[in-house]
């Protein structure tokens, strides 16, 4: 039995075409994949690097016992501007639960070298002489903890 076949030219052409298509596809896939991966890596690295560059110091806290609030003076001593995200407070003397105050809506952004002050109302009863833990969290997730005695 004799089988019927395709011409060699066609076959050659077909082979070439397949090779080109396949090669181009593989090339574009590979390049795309490579690009995606590298961008992801660069982002992660950049974010982490930004977090490293962040540095705040809570220079001073004023306790207002009348309205149960406190004013914080925070200075950016890092190399990157910092937006504050939240504040936590806890009375060490009575082991009170950690109270969280969100600062996201306040839009507190501290430029490099600047010091900002902002007042926060707390539900924890502020008692003179007690020791409090104050934790500030930036929007990059970096937290800054201060232990302070209410005076």
């Amino acid at each position, binding site marked *: 039995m004799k089988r019927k076949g395709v011409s*060699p030219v066609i076959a*050659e*052409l077909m*082979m*070439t075409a397949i*090779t*080109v298509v396949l*090669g*181009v596809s*593989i*090339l574009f896939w*590979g*390049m795309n994949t*490579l*690009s995606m*991966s*590298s961008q992801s*890596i*660069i982002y992660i*690295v*950049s974010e*982490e*690097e930004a977090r*490293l*560059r962040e*540095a*705040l*110091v809570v*220079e*001073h806290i*004023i306790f207002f016992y009348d309205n149960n609030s406190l004013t914080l*003076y925070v*200075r950016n*001593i890092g190399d990157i501007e910092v937006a504050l995200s939240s504040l936590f407070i806890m009375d060490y003397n009575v082991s009170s639960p950690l109270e969280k105050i969100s600062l996201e809506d306040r839009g507190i952004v501290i430029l490099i070298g600047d*010091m900002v002050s902002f007042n926060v109302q707390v539900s924890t009863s502020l008692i003179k002489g007690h020791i409090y833990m104050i934790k500030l969290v930036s929007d990059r997730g970096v937290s800054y903890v201060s232990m302070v005695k209410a*005076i």
Partner: protein
Amino acid sequence: MIRKRGEATIIALVLLALFIISLIATLLIVNSAINTYMETSKKVFRNIEEKRGEDLTILDTYLDDADSTLIIKVKNSGDIYLGIISIWINNTNIQLNSTIYLSPEEVKNIDTGYQINQSKEYIVEIVSERGRIYYGKYPMPKPQVITGRWEHLSYSPVIFPPGSTATYADETYYVNKYHPFNYSIINGSITSGSLESLYYDDDNYMILKSAPLSGTYKNYYPSAYNILAGSVIAGDTSSLRISDDVYLVIESSPILTESKLYAHSESYVIGSSEYYMYKTVSGDGPPLVLNYNTTDDEWHQIASFIYPLNGLNLQSETWNFYYRVKLKSLYYKPIVINEETGKDLVNYQVKIVLNSSNFNFEHAKRDGSDIRFMDSDQNTLLDYWIERWDYDSREAIIWVKVPFIPGGSSKVIYLYYGDPNASYDPNHYGIEKVMEPLPATDGDNYMIYYQEWIMPDNKFQLIGTSMGWHGDDYQWRYQLPFNFPYYSSTYNYVAIASNGYIEVDGDSGRSDWGSTERKFRVRKYVSPYWADLMTDPPRDIYIDTTYSDEYGSGIYIRWNTTYYYLSGDQNFAVVLYRNGLIRFDYGYFSGQSIRDDTPVIGVSYGDNKHYTLSSYNGKTNPSYNNSLLYWPRKKADIEPSVTVGEESVSGGYISVDISILDSTGEVVDVIGSKVASVFINKSDTWVTLSGSFDFPGYSSSEEEYLVVKYYVRGVSGASTRFYLDIDDYNISQSEQTRIELPSQEFPSGYIFNIEFEGSSNRAWIWNNITITLESHYNFNGVEVNMSLYNYNLNRYSQEGEKGFISFTYNNSPEDIVESEIVLSNPEYYRDSDGSWKIKIIGYRDTVFNEKFRAYIDYLVYRVSFINKYGSVIDLYFHDLSLNNFYSLITASKIKYNCTNLFLNYKVFNYPTSDWSLISSWTIDSMNERSYNKTLTNDFSNIVYDGMLILRINSTLVSDDASPFKEYIDASIIYAAYRVSGVIYVGRGNTSETYAYIISNNTWKRLSDAPFIWDGIARLLYISYNRMVYAFNESRLYMYNTTSDVWVSIDSLPGSAGHGASISYSRTYEDIIIYIPGGGSSSAYIYNITSGVWSDIQNIPEAVSSYGMAIGADDGCIYLITGRDSGGFYRYNITSNEWIRIGISPTSELGGMTYYEGFIYISDLDGGLYRYTVSNDTWNGLLPSIPVKSEGEGVRLLTDGSYLYYLRFDYTADVLRIDIQSLTVY
């Protein structure tokens, strides 16, 4: 086909290459991101690392004085640079202009510019650029460091249980009781008992039986005396009984043995005059040579001597005086002048030539300045001049101007010499005194003549003003500044020639260069060097019109010439004196004249008669020859002949005045004047001469003196020195200056001899006899013998035997005591009736007739006998300490079996090695009694090395009584010692009481209290009387710290309960405040002085357990009411008012103590608190007491330096802490 395949491969390879390229690019981008991250990470980690190394210290915060702003002093105490970016003061942020940087170790003062209130506190925050915050404060808190520590001080000898209580005494006593540890019986014997018998007051006695006392004595005094030599001039036997200022005065009698009085060098003053002494012994020392120089023939005193007569009677007889004398007088020789012309010569210059054949040059001075000439009367001094005096070659030429020489006869004048102190007589010596004053004319037998004297030296001088007289063979007329006397005339003009002469009264004009003696004799020339000279320049003639010397003033004319023609130099000069003297001087000469260089030299009046040719005449070139002086004199036609006679001495006299002086030096009788005179004519040789005087006799009174004054007389106008030699032991007695009295005798000694008599009681058995003499004498050197009469030998005791005293007195004017004891056979020295005799002989040698007196003060004949009884026992106590010794009580209980005794206490005195009587009693009862004596003096004399010896000496008052017995029950010494810092402790549940002496860490058990220390009882030391007061539940007691005795004083006005206390006001020192406690609010005061209790205002609240009170310096009592309330009160004694101060830091007190404004309390847990009275403040003190307290009781005490804590918890422990180390909180 194959080609198609190749194309596909190529395409594939191209695509592969593109992929690889893309991959590499992506990797590079990723790598870059990672690198950035890594860099950041490194930076963060570096920041973290740096943050760890960063540190800042706030050293100080203080105010700026100028503007009250706060300054912060900081230091970079880290390892790296630090930047401060922000500062907060409380809630205020201090704006900094820029970051403040500090290098490591750097210190900066940061002026914040922030004004603060100095009285407030501030918190300072400093923020570093790395985010660290550093905190500080204003003011800077001081560091609180607890440095104190309770330390163990002592262990008591017993444990103290709860219930014990204590009090502190700043200064008090403790008493030691000493028993004798040994004894010795000095007199008597023990019949029963022993040393232990003396320890306690009981029925056990030491019994002493008395024995005769060997030391008993009796003094007997003289009742009469017999003078055997001398005389009593004051006092009697009653003067001899006691040593005082009353004396028996005996005057001694002389012993006459010597008949010569020698002159001595010692002096003696009578009245206001001082005299040499006459003594009865010959010279005994180096010679003293007295001298006197006379220049006239008057009597002069050379010395005076004295001898005390003291009542001697001088009989009439011839006294022989011997003088050892030497004379230094002038020698003299007669000079016989024979006039040869047959006519008188008046004021004639006689030439006297001395040489070794006619004159002893050794008797004159070496320069002849002692030469004097006297006229025939040997009194009128003549003018003279020595032309030459050559001592060595024994030649002299002397010109004497003799006033008158009789013509054809002889004239005697005298040459005196030999005074070593003489010098040229300015009134009679000199050439100007001898020369003939000009102008003068010739006499009948003499003419005026210029005598040449070759002077002993060259006097040429380059002086004068150049006259400009140059030339050859010329003379210049010159007007003299004075009239020059020359022979018989005076001249105002001279002509001075270039040829070396002066023509007196000459004119200017030609000068004759040809000099001849013939021309010279007929020309009026003064010719120093007339020759053929010329004064061509630069030669000249010089004149000085102001010239003067020892011979007078005048004009100096000097030539400087040259020989004709112009050969050499000639220098010479002439002095024309105003008095007529002429002198030629010669300087340098040289050269020779071609015509005339042989000079004519001399002076000439030009009349061919009056001229003098020089001895230099015709002598060419007399360079620097001695000068020549021409002086005018008379020259007889025939010169008188002169004969020098033999040498003689001028001599002198010595004699004496004799008189009597009284004690004031006044002359009371003149015996003789200038008697015993002797002439001395031997020069410079010691001789002993004698003279005699018929003494008329004299009866002297006391205090009269013989005075002999020696006089000398010389020769008028001549120096005569007399020498009188006295006191020379080197020469024989026969040559010494003295007086000899053939039969009269003077005292060689004085003596007194007195015999004393007395009586004695011979009923007793004599042990010995002691004779004692206390006396003095008004001269030293009195030899005294005192002897007892020996009735066994029927004579007085002699030297070498008992009962004989011999001594030489040398203590004038002090009394001395001499004593002699006769131990063996004392009965030999009393008569059968008890009478006795003592003879005293005093003798003293004298060479100056010194009568002495004896002053006898005390003379006793002491008899020691044994007919008297006594007992003597010495008790030895030891271990006594002198440290803080305050008082000592010697306490004995004694009884006797009889009365009428003396009891003496004596203690041995170590420095004097003798016994000191400390107390004495008379025994008038046979009952046992205490004999106590308290001593508070310096104990160092009676306590040595801890030992004290007490002598108990009992003696019967009567001498004749019988033996007795002495019963000694106890003999104890109580010694009180003063100590500072003592804690008295009552031991709980017992009566035991202790004293703890802090200074030497000594515990001493005291007498037991008369009650039990039950936790309620308290004690308190009162410094006012140095007593301890204590109470139990019902009574008040007192403990005497000096006697260790408890005394019950009184019952308490209210029973004491828990929390009871006593305290005292430091203002009202004798008041005690008693608070009964036990739930009571009452309180009382007790007056120590009056012993009276008084109520005071009730306390506003009740006092319960653990309550305590204490007095303070403000006079108030401070009370803590105790467990129930803990109220803190102050009681004012003056206002009798309790004031509540507040609440005590504790209501349960473990102790309460006070010192100078501070009250210290402790609680049961050891807490320690301090109350400051001045500001009403309580403070806690750290460290706390390390143990808890159990039960009530005062256990906290202080002396101001330390707090003491007695545990009272069944331990013996005492703790203490330095108050300065306590920390206040």
